Every structure is written in C-alpha cells, then in structure tokens.
C-alpha cells in the first residue's frame, strides 16, 4: 500500500516536472483556429499546413523542439479569448498564431499583446490592428482585410464594369471587404446587402439574389468564406444569374469550396474571377514543395488559409534562426521577423511599419487541372508590392 502511494507520488512528480524540462528546450506556439462547427473544415486545413511546416522543419527550430498547441475557438469571439487566455497564462507559450475570424482576433489580441507575447495572424486582417491599434508584437502572414477586395475593385475598373451589387456577411471582416472594394471601384454601387453571420449564419440567399438581379447591376461582388461560399454559389447558379450577372469574389472560391462545388456539378463557378495574394500554381520553389507535399498527404490542394498558416510557422522559424534560438531577447526576434527573411510560399515580401505584408495581388480564374480537378490559376498581377491603407494611422 505504502509502496503504491510512493509510486503514485513519484509518477506525479515526474509528470509535473516534465513541462518545466520541456520549456527550456522547446519553442511553444499556440494556434487558435476553428475546429468545430461547419467552419471547422477551414481550421483542419490550417492545422494540416502547420503540421506540414513542422514536418518540413524536422520538428525543430534552431535546435529547439517545436511544440504546437491547437485550440478551437468554436467560431465565437468569447471562446477564442478564453482559449487565448489559457495559452498565454497557463501554457505560457512564446507565440500565439492562427485566427481565421477578425472578430475573434480582435477579442483575443489584447491578452497576447498585454502579456508581451508575439501574436501572428494567419488569416484575419482587421483594419483596427493595421491602423490605430497596431502593436510592435503583432505580425500578419496574410493581408489587411481591405487589400484583396481593393484588388478586385481595380479588376472591375479594368474590365469596364459600370455598376456592381455587393453581398457580404455582417461582421468586422465583411465590412472591411465592402470598404475595400468601394474604395477602389470607380463605378456605381447598385445595391448592398449585409447578411447575418456567426454560428447561426444565414445560408439561404434567395431574397438577396432576387434583389441583385432586379438591381440591373453589371456584376456581383461577394465575400463568403468557408462553407457559406459553396452555398452562395450554388444558389447563384440555380437562380440562373451566371450569364446576366458575372460573379467577382474574394475569399470565397478556394480549395475548400471548389471540390464540393464540383461534386454538386455547379459549373457556373468555372471561369469566375477572384483576387488573392497567392495561388496554388504560383511559381516558386517553396510553393511547389508546399503544394506538392500537401496534396500528397491530404489529396486536395491547400487553401490560402493553409498557405498563410504554413508561412506563420516559417516566419517564426526565420526569427529563431536569426537569434540562434534565443527566446529571451524579444527585440532581436522582432527585428528578425520584421525582415521577413524566409522563402514564403507567395514569394518574397516585406513588412510595413504596422507589420502587415507588402505584397503582390493576383487575379485568379477557376480552371480544371490536368486531372480534371477544379482549381485556381493566376491570370495576371493586379497590384505589385501593395501596402494597406491604414498604415499611416499606425504610430509605431
């Protein structure tokens, strides 16, 4: 009996001491994303990309073991904040990365930044964090929300579209997307609908599509990330708008929605245009390796969410390499990250003073690849080395 007690005490002590030993030799990265709800499919893609990045690095950054802790925000700002609190206060991570949703990131950012940790957004790019609320320890490996729709607005100008109808979800990023396209597009906004978003988001767009059709616009601009995008495009095709109201989208047509649209035989999406800072066919060595290995492992193309998540890990790695794995010298790590000195899957880019990437934006078109699978292909470059519009409000 006594022996048994001793054994338990001993093993308890061993278990408790483990993380302390681990801390000295590992770099801890908390990764917050959505793993449940239908949006969990995005989180899975990001998780796969992070794991692939860790694998490509051989599980080590500058000789230290990489320890990634994934947390599920459940598509809710309050849960995202709770999970971030846990990562920062209990797990004492060195970096917090991830974040699909702007409203979740905005709710969670303070915890990380007040604790003096590094925060890296692998997707969300709310204007607040690019402008007035910028922070020396916040970095993005994606974009500022407005940039991609601005590129789309420019495309609409170039294609001579006179008026456009806008449909987007009613939350932080949706508003940024609309602001972005309105800023760049010189034609008329024929109408605008902001739909309910969140865990109980609106998925039936019959009323909005009927309005768009009646508005007589030349084009339809939409932003519907995740599974909502597939639903929207299906209804767009069923409403017979393909020829009369061409579709221009951002963050909607991607490697998550395309296989499902192909399975549902929604060929209205083939040939549709979208803008993006990256594409699976972008011609550089890092991207080729990333896309090929991702496809070999998971059977599908990586999404842009995956590309950004992969880059988040690679950015951290570049900083650790530069400082020789010294996690205590924050200034050195920050200086190294500001250089963005690594082979990003989008090609080389640089950081503005608000730590938002200055990068190219491309026009992409949906095509069938050699195997007949639908994917996106770069048509041309819309913006070269584009910087976001909020950088001047940043006091760094």
């Amino acid at each position, binding site marked *: 009996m006594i022996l048994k007690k001793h054994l338990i005490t001993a093993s308890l002590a061993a278990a408790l001491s483990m993380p302390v030993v681990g801390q000295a030799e590992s770099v801890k990265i908390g990764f917050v994303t959505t*793993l*449940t*709800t*239908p949006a*969990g*499919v995005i*989180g*899975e893609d990001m998780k796969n990309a992070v794991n692939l990045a860790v694998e490509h690095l051989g599980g080590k950054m500058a000789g230290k073991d990489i320890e990634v802790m994934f947390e599920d925000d459940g598509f809710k700002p309050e849960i995202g904040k709770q999970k971030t609190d846990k990562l920062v206060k209990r797990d004492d991570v060195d970096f917090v990365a991830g974040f699909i949703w702007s409203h979740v990131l905005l709710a969670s950012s303070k915890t990380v930044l007040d604790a003096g940790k590094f925060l890296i957004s692998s997707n969300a790019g709310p204007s607040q964090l690019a402008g007035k609320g910028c922070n020396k320890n916040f970095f993005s490996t994606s974009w500022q929300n407005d940039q991609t729709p601005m590129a789309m607005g420019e495309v609409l100008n170039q294609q001579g579209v006179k008026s456009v109808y806008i449909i987007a979800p*009613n939350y932080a990023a949706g508003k940024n997307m609309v602001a972005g396209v309105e800023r760049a597009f010189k034609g008329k906004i024929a109408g*605008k*609908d*902001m*739909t*309910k978003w969140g*865990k*109980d*988001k609106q*998925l*039936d767009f*019959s*009323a*909005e599509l*009927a*309005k768009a059709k*009646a508005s007589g616009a030349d084009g339809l601009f939409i932003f519907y990330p995740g*599974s909502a995008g*597939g*639903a929207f495009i*299906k*209804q767009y*095709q*069923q*409403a*017979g708008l393909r020829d009369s109201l061409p579709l221009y989208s951002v963050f909607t047509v991607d490697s*998550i929605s395309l296989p*499902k649209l192909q*399975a*549902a*035989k*929604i060929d209205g999406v083939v040939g549709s245009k979208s803008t993006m800072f990256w594409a699976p066919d972008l011609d550089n060595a890092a991207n080729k390796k990333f896309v090929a290995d991702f496809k070999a492992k998971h059977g599908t193309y990586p999404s842009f969410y995956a590309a950004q998540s992969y880059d988040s890990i690679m950015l951290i790695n570049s900083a650790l390499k530069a400082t020789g794995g010294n996690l205590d010298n924050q200034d050195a790590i920050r200086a190294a990250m500001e250089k963005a000195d690594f082979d990003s899957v989008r090609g080389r880019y640089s950081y503005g003073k608000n730590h938002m990437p200055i990068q190219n934006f491309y026009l992409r078109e949906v095509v069938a690849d050699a195997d007949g699978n639908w994917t996106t292909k770069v048509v041309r470059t819309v913006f070269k080395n584009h910087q976001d519009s909020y950088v001047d409000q940043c006091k760094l």
Partner: protein
Amino acid sequence: MDWHLLISQLLNGLQLGLLLFLLASGLSLIFGIMDFINLAHGSFYMVGAFVGATVVSLTGSLIIAVVVTMIAMLILGVLVDILIARKLYGQDHLDQVLVTFGLILVFDTLAHIIWGSAGATIPLPDVLNGQIEIATFVMPTYRLLIIVCGLLVALGSYFLVTRSRLGMLIRAGASNRNMVTALGVNIDRLYLIVFAIGAAMAGFAGLLIAPITEASIGMGNEIIIIAFVVVIVGGIGSVKGAFYGAILIGFIDTLGRSYLDDLLKLFLSNQSAETAAPALSAMLVYILMVVVLVFKPEGLFPPSGFNKK
C-alpha cells in the same frame, strides 16, 4: 414598384415558410400533446440532410434518397421516443430541456464522427439546377419544387389531422391530454406515432434544403429557434397554427431582408440604414412573437377547447 421582385420575394418567403412548417408542425404536436420540449428536433433536420446526402452519393437518385431518408427518420424517431423521450413525458420542463440539449450535442458529435466537419452536398440533376420561366418571370426550378413538396405535405397533414381517426386522437390529445388517457386510448402508441412522424417531417425538411445550402453540423440548431417562434405564434399543439405561423414568419423574414433597408433609407441616412437594416430584420420575427404574446398569449390558432391543463 418592381412587381417581378415582389413576386419572387413572396415566393421566397413562401418557400422558407413551408420549410419552417415541416419543422414546426412536428415540434408543435410534440409540445402540445406530450407537453414535451424537444430541443433536439433540429437534430432530426440535420440527420435527414446527412442521410439524404449519403444516399444520393451512393445511388445517385434523389427519389431513392427521399424514401430511404423517410424510413430512416421514422426509425430514428421511434428509437429516440422509446429510449429517451418516453422517460421524460410528464417530467419537469427543465429536465426535458437538459436532456434534449444533451441530445443535440450527441447528434452533432456523431455527425462530426460519421460525416466529418466538411459537411455534405446533394448534387441536383440538371433539370432541377435550372430555372422555370413563366412569361418574363424566372424562378429557380428547385425552389419551386420545395414549394410544391411543402404544400403537398401540408395538404397531407391537413387531411391526416382533420379526416382520420389518428388525427382525431391527435386533436383530442392536444386539447385535453388527461381526458384522452381517461377514455382508454393507448397513449404510448399515440405518442410514438406523433414523435416518429414529427422526426420524419423534420428530416424531410433537412433533405429539401440540403441541395440549396448543404448538410452541415449544427444546421438544425440555427433553424429550431425560429421553429419554436412559429409554434408560439401559431399556438402550441395546432397544426393549422403551425402552418399559418410558419408562412407568416417566412414572409416577414424574407420581406424584411428585402425591403427594410429601402424603407429605413426614407428617414435615416444611407450609412445608418445599411447598418440598422440587417440587425432589425433579424429581430423582426421576435418582435412579432412579442406582439402575439401580448395580444393573444395562446397563439393565433390554438387547438379548439384549449385550456392550460
């Protein structure tokens, strides 16, 4: 006034209303007859969508999918009634809410394990993916099909409730449960049948909507709240009330989404109208519910002879 737009919005409202009716009629009967609050009714909607998607992907036939889904949902309804719900009839409402909320989590997690987080689509044959043109009016074929199916089911349930012996018992049960039991009706069997039919109708609604949106985890939890509003507005335990309540709410929701921003622009700035309209249109159905509760607390069409126990 754009008449084309108005007509298509009315049809869109009708389509939403009929889908809500399929859910709310079962919910209302279960609530009215068994005095059982079934939060997990939305899970039947989700399971119906997923089962339908699976059958379509295996057989390629929408008709087989409808048949198989109906049978599967009847069986599921029977199982849930016998294994779980039956033990909760006559218990405190709080117990029922807790157990059925747990059931939602169980169904959602099971769906996650079986079908994954990605959701499932139901591909439509080309005919149904197209549009029907009547003069200059164009309507998506599939949405018209939903309306036709919904109306047929509504008609069927009308005859079932008003013209059959089962319907007579159902109406009697909704009006005065104790009296029906006292008269020697096998109440367990009646409950079982109502529960199974309710599950099948919810599953059918899920199957109908899946080709438009898709089968996804938690899809039922979004719509079940509105279905409860329908039940309250229409009158608890009344199929007729569920029908009119559902159509009314379908219209209000759709027309709110279509015309509220233009309406608000008449006396607000464009900017504030654009921000206020989505929030307000999401609230409209609840405002309606409050109004109904104030003026007609028993709902618009309560079962005849309805008394609070």
